[in-house]
């Protein structure tokens, strides 16, 4: 358990350190995130994050939710004998975030190079591929497609709403839906203000997501006491099968 905690701490620190490098001259963008942390309980089925903040007047705004980055081992599918599709070579992707949601006040292509780099196409450029593979960009694109299908990666164009602030600055707000397939960990919420294709202000905050109640108990059991968990899972399954069998016996008896 202590090892897990240390690992978690290291990941959080690493994440904070490896977050988007501040753009030279970019001002601090302040915003609030509600809720400030996510609890994953028995009935968790996705949650909406309300992000509210202020940006320099006339800016376009991008808000992102990015999960911890890790290495991902996968297999590439290819044709054998020019006929059969099979899992072929193993490969490893590095720097793959668990979740990547980017919302913008307009289309990402309309934001210029800096804006585009904040979306999925920018993410693709940061993911590395190890292994004897020929076409790395195509494979990264496949990975992003897979994650999109799983509901973990998304671009929401036009989701960020802009308004008029009191002192001439602009306000922005976005309601971002977190995926139902959310793992516990630390996520990073980031906001960027862009003008003329460049980032003029940016800010970030951490969003911890943790398991509570029954899911927390079961996950602890499964990871810390695997043997006991397996035996209990088996015994309960056996008893449930027996119980249902007996119920049917009494029903079937004439």
């Amino acid at each position, binding site marked *: 358990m202590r090892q897990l905690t240390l690992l978690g701490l290291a990941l959080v620190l690493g994440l904070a350190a490896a977050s988007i490098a501040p753009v030279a001259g970019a001002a601090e963008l302040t915003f609030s995130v509600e809720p400030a942390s996510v609890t994953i309980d028995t009935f968790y089925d996705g949650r909406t994050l309300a992000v509210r903040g202020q940006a320099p007047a006339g800016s376009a705004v991008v808000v992102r939710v990015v999960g911890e980055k890790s290495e991902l081992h996968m297999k590439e599918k290819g044709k054998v004998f020019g006929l059969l599709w099979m899992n072929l070579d193993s490969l490893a992707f590095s720097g793959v975030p668990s979740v990547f949601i980017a919302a913008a006040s307009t289309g990402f292509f309309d934001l210029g190079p800096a804006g585009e780099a904040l979306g999925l196409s920018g993410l693709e450029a940061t993911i590395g591929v190890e292994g004897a593979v020929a076409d790395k960009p195509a494979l990264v694109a496949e990975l992003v497609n897979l994650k999109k299908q799983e509901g973990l990666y998304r671009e929401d164009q036009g989701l960020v709403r802009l308004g008029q602030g009191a002192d001439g600055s602009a306000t922005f707000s976005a309601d971002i839906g977190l995926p139902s397939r959310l793992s516990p960990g630390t996520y990073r919420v980031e906001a960027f203000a862009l003008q003329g294709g460049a980032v003029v202000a940016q800010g970030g905050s951490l969003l911890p997501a943790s398991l509570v109640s029954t899911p927390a108990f079961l996950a602890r059991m499964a990871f810390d006491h695997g043997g006991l968990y397996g035996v209990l899972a088996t015994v309960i399954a056996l008893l449930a*099968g027996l119980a249902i069998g007996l119920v*049917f016996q009494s029903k079937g008896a004439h």
Partner: protein
Amino acid sequence: MSIPFHLYLPIAGNSVNVLAILGLGGAVGLLSGIFGVGGGFLMTPLLIMMGIPPTVAAASDSNQIVGASTSGTLAHFRLGNVDFKMGFILLLGGVAGGALGVQIIKILRQMGNADFLINLTYVLMLGFVGGYMFIESLQSMQKTKSGRTEAPKARKSVYSAVVGRLPFQTEFTRSGIRLSALVPLVLGTLVGVLAAIMGVGGGFIMVPVMVYLLRMPMHVVVGTSLFQILFTCVNVTIMQSVQNHTVDFVLALLLLIGSSIGAQLGAKVGRKLGGDQLKILLASLVLIIMGKMLYELLARPDILLAYVGGH
């Protein structure tokens, strides 16, 4: 989305619709109760489609089969359809074969192209087993219809001549057969090897082996197969929990409530069907699965990547 029909699965790391999972469990349990197969070949891909990671889907499925096969074995036991002696001997062979299969797969992986061999074995095996069963039971049904009752075992094959001379001849009362205990031991081992290589429980190979090579009556085959699957899946569940932490108990519990009820209904449905009808239906199911696998091999996949660990 406001109706609280969703539950978060702590190991799978995803939330699922409770009714969908119960329904899936019920449908697969029904097939399991009718045919004596675990149903992993159906359940695992459907769970993956619902957003469960492949390794968690396979491991949790084993956990739920423990419940479904307990329920199914109990139902078949009451109908007098479980040959415990035969089941134990096959199981013994199966455990040895499983261990051997795991070693073989390691060697295959080192040689490379293991997945190709696994897929090919799978498709050929399904095609052969399904095709043979289908044709055999069709012929048998036609004979029964035309009223001709030829002695089916008039032709002494080399196989039965060899089997008849083996030592350790044992009476299997429940199945109404007498043969050497070595036969189920060796066949159990072979099925164990194949099941380990293909990463499946092996019910769909074991059932035809019992019908055609051990010549057990179809109804006893179904009950005995379920009894044996129960032990295999207890073993897999505990191993997966200890080594990979991939058993999601919430998922398994939901599935098994559905599948245990399905298995009970299946045993009743199976009783209403004749042995030949059961065989031809199972053969059709096996052929459909083969068709699906063949299609997956031939058609270009949507995504050209696969997670490591699924099958």
